[in-house]
């Protein structure tokens, strides 16, 4: 095969992948452009398309694929419309953050439904026989099915473009993406168009899933695998720009394919590098304009949870009580024999610290860090590498983790904090994915296995406790290395909370909150908004790194999964679940989330589904988080009357907090 043919084949392969991306990204971009919804469930709709087609085509045999190609996207479209009507619609007008959370819950639900219907393993989905052969065009032989993908993709992209630019439907959609209230004022029921748009975007994702499913196979992880590249494309091309989605899709498809063949080291990295470079140079993406995508509310609609209904005194008492209980747990566990509870609590404490770190930026600076697991993961790697290569001391390892993560946060913040809102979210996600893909590539990070079997020492210069040898009998109890580890963890987490609280109560914290409420006003008063946000981000990155380092040191290993975006999603979930902007709320959220996950997963197979449903309900009905529940109850017309009399005094205090 000549070089020219080889390149031509790679280019065609790139176009095939690119076309799938175009279909996927077009739907995602239209949904974002029109409704401001960042739809993380788009990948699952893509997978649903593939599975529906798989289910329809199988029994029909020969022509089954073609029937499925029409019917399955329609079904996905209907599901998309139902999702919009029942869930997404309730959150319009709120910060886009809530849609991220909502659709994150939907990912769990749909994914669990897929695995419970079709199983966890990948299944072959055959290409229709008529297309399953090579064809020679211009003296060049290539798969007919691949040509078919390019044709199907082109036709649908062209059709979508015509729909958007030449029809009344498209005109209303475009107008709605610019000023939805004005469209309403004209007497047009924009809600109906939103539902249709969501359905249309979902159907496009469905088509993409079908063509890719037959190209590879169908598997429950296929949605998860494409959602991040799809976001990259949408951001690269310009949020909400259809042209951008098409150009970005083809470009990323080509770059990925060519990189895989010619520069294997860069595979998986190059796309994120490109995205970061583009966003830094041109934050609106290649084809984006400030119209539509720029008008984000800069956190003004982020619901801080406020102080809750309890007075600060009560809260302090509860805090002491909680720490007291946590101190006693190892003894109770020993007494009752439920030693497992200590392990669970360690997990909770680490996630609580991670959530606390996120709250500093999300809840106080209004920065949606969508890739916060970057710091968690890097902290874990940094501490394990330090333990292996530099010193077995946990203290040294954690200090290194914090410093490295703070430095990376400074760098990422330097590049991205001047870009606001959604773009910041996407850049942080881009960096997290970049590191996630990078740790697979190097030997010193242990590749896909990670690094494990690390021994730790709680001390410095030979003075301290080696947990593997430590054992002091104490009456009924044995005070061993595991307990040392637990108390150390508890002390670090409580200490970090106190530090964060000190920071927020200092003038620094007040400025941050002012920035969250109104960036413009804070800067008019004379504060350097960017500098303040960056500082908060550095502190937050350091604390997240500490959390990651603690986990790695506690468990003696680190793996690429520490950097997976699911962690970033989960920590946002915990933060909002508990009530952001309170510091202690996210920590409670982490406790509830981790405990619920642990308990549910040991009793129910479909635990993800249950968590997903709970989470969707929560985002819709209790957006201010668990800590707002007492307030919500107190405000309730019937339940509240009882509570209200007792809380009159504290409510005035709550207002001051808000």
């Amino acid at each position, binding site marked *: 095969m000549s070089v020219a043919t080889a390149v031509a084949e790679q280019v065609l392969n790139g176009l095939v992948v690119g076309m799938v991306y175009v279909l996927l990204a077009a739907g995602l971009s239209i949904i974002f452009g029109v409704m401001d919804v960042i739809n993380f469930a788009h990948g699952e709709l893509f997978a649903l398309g593939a599975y529906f087609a798989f289910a329809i085509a199988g029994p029909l045999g020969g022509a089954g694929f073609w029937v499925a190609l029409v019917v399955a996207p329609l079904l996905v479209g209907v599901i998309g419309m139902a999702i919009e009507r029942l869930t997404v619609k309730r959150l319009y007008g709120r910060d886009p953050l809530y849609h991220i959370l909502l659709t994150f819950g939907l990912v769990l639900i749909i994914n669990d439904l897929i695995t419970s219907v079709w199983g966890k393993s990948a299944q072959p989905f055959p290409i229709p026989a008529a297309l399953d052969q090579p064809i020679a065009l211009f003296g060049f032989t290539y798969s007919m099915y691949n040509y078919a993908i390019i044709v199907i993709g082109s036709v649908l992209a062209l059709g979508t473009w015509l729909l958007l630019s030449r029809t*009344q439907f498209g005109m*209303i959609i*475009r107008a709605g993406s610019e000023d939805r209230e004005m469209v309403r*004022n*004209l007497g047009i*029921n924009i809600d109906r168009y939103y539902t249709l748009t969501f359905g249309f975007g979902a159907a496009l994702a469905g088509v993409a899933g079908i063509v890719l499913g037959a190209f590879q196979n169908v598997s429950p992880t296929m949605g998860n695998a494409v959602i991040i590249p799809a976001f990259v494309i949408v951001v690269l091309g310009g949020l909400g720009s259809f042209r951008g989605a098409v150009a970005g899709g083809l470009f990323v498809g080509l770059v990925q394919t060519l990189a895989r063949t010619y520069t294997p080291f860069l595979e998986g990295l190059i796309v994120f590098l490109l995205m970061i470079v583009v966003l830094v140079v041109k934050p609106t993406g290649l084809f984006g304009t400030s*119209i539509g995508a720029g008008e984000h509310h800069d956190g003004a609609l982020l619901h801080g949870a406020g102080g809750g209904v309890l007075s600060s005194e009560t809260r302090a008492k509860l805090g002491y009580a909680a720490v007291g209980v946590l101190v006693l747990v190892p003894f109770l566990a020993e007494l009752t024999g439920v030693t497992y509870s200590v392990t669970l609590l360690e997990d909770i404490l680490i996630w609580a610290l991670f959530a606390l770190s996120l709250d500093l930026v999300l809840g106080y600076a209004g920065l949606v860090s969508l890739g916060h697991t970057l710091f968690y993961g890097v902290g874990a790697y940094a501490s394990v590498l330090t333990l292996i290569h530099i010193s077995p001391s946990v203290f040294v390892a954690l200090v290194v983790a914090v410093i490295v993560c703070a430095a990376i946060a400074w760098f990422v913040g330097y590049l991205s904090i001047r870009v606001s809102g959604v773009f910041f979210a996407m850049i942080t996600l881009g960096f997290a994915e970049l590191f996630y893909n990078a740790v697979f590539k190097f030997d010193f990070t242990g590749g896909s296995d990670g690094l494990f079997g690390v021994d730790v020492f709680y001390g410095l210069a030979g003075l301290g406790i080696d947990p593997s040898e430590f054992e002091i009998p104490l009456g009924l109890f044995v005070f061993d290395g595991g307990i040392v580890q637990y108390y150390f963890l508890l002390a670090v987490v409580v200490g970090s909370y106190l530090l964060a609280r000190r920071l927020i109560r200092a003038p620094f914290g007040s400025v941050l909150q002012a920035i969250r409420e109104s960036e413009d006003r804070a800067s008019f008063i004379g504060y350097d908004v960017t500098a303040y946000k960056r500082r908060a981000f550095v502190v937050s990155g350091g604390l997240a790194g500490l959390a990651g380092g603690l986990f790695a040191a506690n468990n003696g290993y680190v793996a690429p999964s520490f950097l997976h975006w699911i962690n970033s999603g989960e920590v946002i979930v915990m933060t909002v679940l508990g009530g952001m902007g309170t510091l202690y709320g996210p920590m409670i959220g982490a406790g509830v989330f981790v405990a619920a996950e642990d308990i549910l997963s040991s009793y129910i197979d479909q635990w993800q589904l249950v968590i997903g449903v709970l989470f969707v309900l929560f985002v819709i009905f209790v957006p201010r988080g668990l800590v707002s529940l007492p307030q919500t109850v107190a405000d309730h017309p019937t339940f509240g009357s009882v509570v209200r009399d007792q809380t009159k005094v504290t409510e005035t205090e709550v207002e001051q907090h808000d």
Partner: protein
Amino acid sequence: MTDPLLSVRDLVSGYGSTRVLQGVNLDVDKGSVVTLIGRNGVGKTTTLRSILGSVSPTSGTVTFDGTDITELSPEKTAQEGIALVPEERRVFPGLTVRENVEIGRIGGRRDIEKPSVDEIIDEFENLARHHESRGANLSGGEQQMLAIARALVSAPDLLMLDEPTEGLAPSIVKQVQRKITELNDEGVTILLVEQNVQVALDAADYVYILDKGQVVHEGPADEVAASEEVLDRYLGVSLAE
């Protein structure tokens, strides 16, 4: 005497826990131009928004052509035949002039024949010249005309204009003023909110002065214009000729 086209009774309305309107009463007769004037922040825009339904009134009623529209959503109110030319114009920046008008034609009442897009564009000289330009590329005055055209194409029974001369050059203000008079001559009923007292009084048949969320004075435009005491007390202006 026939019933007024629009009748607002004891309207209380606002945002969150802030009450902006504290019981507003006003009538707009068919074929007339009624203006609402007052200082900043007294509730003029909120009155229009409450009539349209983009702010839900706490109490009071809004009756339009015999129908109670108090609880209707903005889209339903618009479908009853009320069109708004909003503050700051709010033309769709990415849509062409033609598309801006076309989308206005999709809205409004369903049961009537509406003028064609071309007819409306031809009525506005500057728009006809730029009909393929995007809204964002128009001048302030052109955008104002476009916002009026977008409202007119739905053939509304009542046209509400919110500060249509704000931020425009004096010569353009005159054009807008002329357009309002012209439209009224063609039989369009107009409810105008205006900061520019001169424009407001010149254009109007009847005037309501709003202060602190209530109508504090009302009367035929020429009477209000003649009463220095009223102008001075409520608006702090004098119309020295």
